[in-house]
């Protein structure tokens, strides 16, 4: 691709970008939030029509004006904001636009099922194909989106931040899939903010910044620090405020139960205590009951058993940004205001003080470095990461007593993540919150990103099949927790057997 430019309104998202990638390579595309990564790839897959571009695929000039052109040219993409139909089953979603499906003929569910099996055997990637997507957890949806692309068997595969909601093992899987695809001579374009993944997985790297290419390199020639320096233009990884000793209890769940829509047990006798000033980390593979747990912790759902005591001011960062946290057709200001309706500072009797709210939002946009034209821009027009920042900005403000954060840094670039962690730590410290000198808060961090948990949690639990398993300080290790997440067992099967061998 050469000379790709795209303006949205006045602002240019892509400015004369050139991007080249070869068959048989894994090519990472990185850059800060709003750099233009997604837009560039949407251009390549015909979802955004560029103001100017000339695209050459396998040598010949190609004009890609519609998704159909892109398919014709063998381009396929895993979308950052999923393109799945919730009301349809996984299988139906996979059949849609699948090149095995003959136009208008009987749906070859059989073939697709079989294909799916093969993929499962090859890659270990799998989701029950007869479930409805709306019943799937975000993690599972991400997997469906990936399967959809693989089934279409395109020549050029674009993955837009596929790893942000996957468990470590699943990420590892995906990386090996990339490798295999590359070996088959396919082109893999991989967008992520997890720079270590970039370093380990990719053959070549292109860095975007403010819609321009600022660097082309190869992993051998650089490292995480180096990359983030180019991306952000400054060093990251500044040390974070160390938390003080925990204080009074803010949350207590005792033998809490949750029953799913189909009567299945989602939470089994969960016991949990969160104290002010501490971060409780909950690791787990998506789809083990996190949904119910966070809804109970954030006071949105009554438990189906057990007792729950919650504080008053709770901030909640859900995993499904588009569906649960933001109203796409509303502008940034209105989306933040969702969290201010009850806030006396922004109310005069029943009236909302919009001028005051807008002022406040302008300030947030600056502090959180949200890339937007103005506080009146619709959030649908924001980049994925910037959308996430809007959510964080709103919810952190609310977390006077408790913050329930679900994969909070999904889609955030390194700098933004750092900033979030700082804010989160500040919550824990006495009176350090900018305008309020409230009591310090507690934090529950539910994440599929083990790193995140290990580096910030004071207490660590693993959620498995709706059970909450406490991890003792002693055996905190990547391996142990990883096993717990996958098997729910503290000791692995072999050693148990060997124990038995003794007597």
């Amino acid at each position, binding site marked *: 691709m050469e000379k790709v430019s795209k303006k949205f309104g006045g602002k240019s998202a892509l400015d004369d970008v050139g991007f080249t990638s070869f068959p048989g390579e894994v090519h990472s595309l990185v850059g800060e939030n709003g750099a233009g990564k997604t837009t560039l790839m949407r251009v390549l897959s015909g979802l955004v029509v560029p103001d100017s571009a000339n695209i050459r695929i396998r040598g010949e000039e190609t004009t890609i004006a519609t998704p159909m052109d892109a398919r014709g040219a063998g381009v396929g993409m895993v979308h950052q904001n999923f393109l799945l139909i919730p009301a349809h089953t996984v299988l139906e979603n996979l059949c849609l636009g699948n090149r095995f499906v003959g136009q208008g003929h009987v749906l070859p569910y059989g073939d697709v099922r079989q294909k799916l099996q093969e993929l499962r055997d090859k890659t270990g990637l799998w989701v029950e194909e007869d479930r409805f997507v709306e019943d799937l957890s975000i993690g599972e949806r991400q997997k469906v989106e990936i399967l959809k692309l693989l089934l279409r068997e395109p020549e050029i595969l674009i993955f837009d931040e596929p790893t942000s909601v996957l468990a470590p093992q699943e990420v590892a899987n995906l990386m090996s899939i990339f490798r295999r695809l590359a070996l088959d001579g396919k082109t893999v374009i991989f967008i992520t903010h997890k720079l270590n993944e970039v370093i380990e997985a990719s053959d070549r790297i292109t860095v975007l910044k403010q819609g321009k290419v600022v660097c082309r390199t190869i992993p051998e020639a650089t490292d995480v620090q180096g990359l983030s320096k180019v991306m952000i233009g400054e060093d990251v990884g500044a040390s974070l405020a160390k938390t003080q000793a925990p204080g009074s209890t803010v949350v207590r769940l005792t033998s809490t139960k949750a029953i799913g829509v189909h009567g299945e047990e989602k939470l089994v006798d969960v016991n949990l205590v969160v104290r002010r000033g501490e971060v409780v980390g909950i690791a787990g593979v998506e789809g083990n009951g996190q949904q119910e747990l966070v809804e109970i912790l954030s006071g949105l759902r009554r438990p189906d058993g057990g007792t729950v005591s919650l504080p008053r001011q709770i901030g909640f960062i859900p995993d499904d940004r588009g*569906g649960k946290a933001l109203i796409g057709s*509303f502008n940034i200001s209105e989306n933040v205001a969702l*969290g201010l309706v009850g806030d006396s500072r922004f109310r005069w009797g029943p*009236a909302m003080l919009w001028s005051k709210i807008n002022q406040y939002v302008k300030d947030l946009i600056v502090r959180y470095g949200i890339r937007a034209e103005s506080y009146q821009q619709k959030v649908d027009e924001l980049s994925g990461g910037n959308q996430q920042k809007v959510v964080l900005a709103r919810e952190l403000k609310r977390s006077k007593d408790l913050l329930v954060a679900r994969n909070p840094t999904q889609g955030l670039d390194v700098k933004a993540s750092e900033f979030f962690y700082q804010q989160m730590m500040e919550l824990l410290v006495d009176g350090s919150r900018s305008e309020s000198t409230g009591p310090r808060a507690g934090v529950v961090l539910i994440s599929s990103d083990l790193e995140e948990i290990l580096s910030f949690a004071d207490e660590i639990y693993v959620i498995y099949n709706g059970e909450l398993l406490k991890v003792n300080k002693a055996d905190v290790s990547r391996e142990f927790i990883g096993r717990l997440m996958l098997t729910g067992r503290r000791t692995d099967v072999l050693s148990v057997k060997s124990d038995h061998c003794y007597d």
Partner: protein
Amino acid sequence: MTNRDSWIALAVSLSALLLTALLTAAALALGGYSPLVVLQSLLEGSFGSLDIFFGVTLVRAIPLVVIGLAVTVAFKSGVWNIGAEGQFYAGSMAGVWVGLSVGDYPSFFSVPLVFLSAAAAGAIWALLPALMKIRLGVGEVVTTILMNFVAIHLVSYVVRWPLQESRGVFPNTDLIDESVRLPIIIPGTGLHLGFVVAVICVVGLSIFFNNTGMGFQLRAMGGSKEATRVSGRARIPMLLIVTFLLSGSLAGLAGGIEITGRTFALYEGMSPGWGYTAIAVALLADLNFIAVLVTGIFFGALEGGAGAMQREAGIPAAWVSGIEALVLLSVLASDRILRRLLRSKKKYDVKERELDV
């Protein structure tokens, strides 16, 4: 869409506008009527003189505006209330009942009382669909449509049995007392106080929706129920109830206004499908309260002019609804043209409203 597409669309719109205009003219000419005469009578019958504008266009606009507001409230909040028709009838039944029984009280007391009861009745009529939606998850589109038919037959019962005129002969109620009738605000024209009420509703609602917390939450619910529940920490069932009641009471109020302002008694067929026309009124106004006032007046003019077409130009009634339709279609076409011309930027795959029937 690219600029190219949007200019194509503009061309399409323009030609559609021309086409509809030509079609209308051609159809009329074929029927042996002079398009110009028809157009003239249409305009004179709606804007011909101040008296006509006030006495015909504005008077006819009143129910359309108020019911249009009812629809707007609902649609803005993501509630598909197709039942304004029935809520209007509920309002007129309650209105006439109270109106007949408060004859001997002073107007400043009896008239507001009629309005209140009419609004209340409309709200109650909307309550059943609301509860069925919240408790049983039955979509409101179908329940509200059904409630319309029930209301219509209920009217035909009420005017033949409980509230039938004192002579017990004709299927309509007695006339309400002079003191319960709305004063004419512009002497000589039929323009009654109802218009002021309508305008007050317009202003009040746009303030409520744009400047109050609850109004904002309703709009948010219209944008996304789930996000409003999770991030707005709002009690959706409560917001739904509020929406239904508010929408229903407006449609009911319209009934009260018609009784006290125009018919002074309850008859069958009081509403020629206003509840449905109002949907067009609201949507043509892009669910903007102020704009509803304008589109409402537009439809009022259309119906007033249509009457004149029959009287002056001798166009058979059958033609009238056809011509109304063509006018409506050409408005749609030009509406698109304006959108294209005024548009600054185009946003990509955004869902505006979610329909859950």
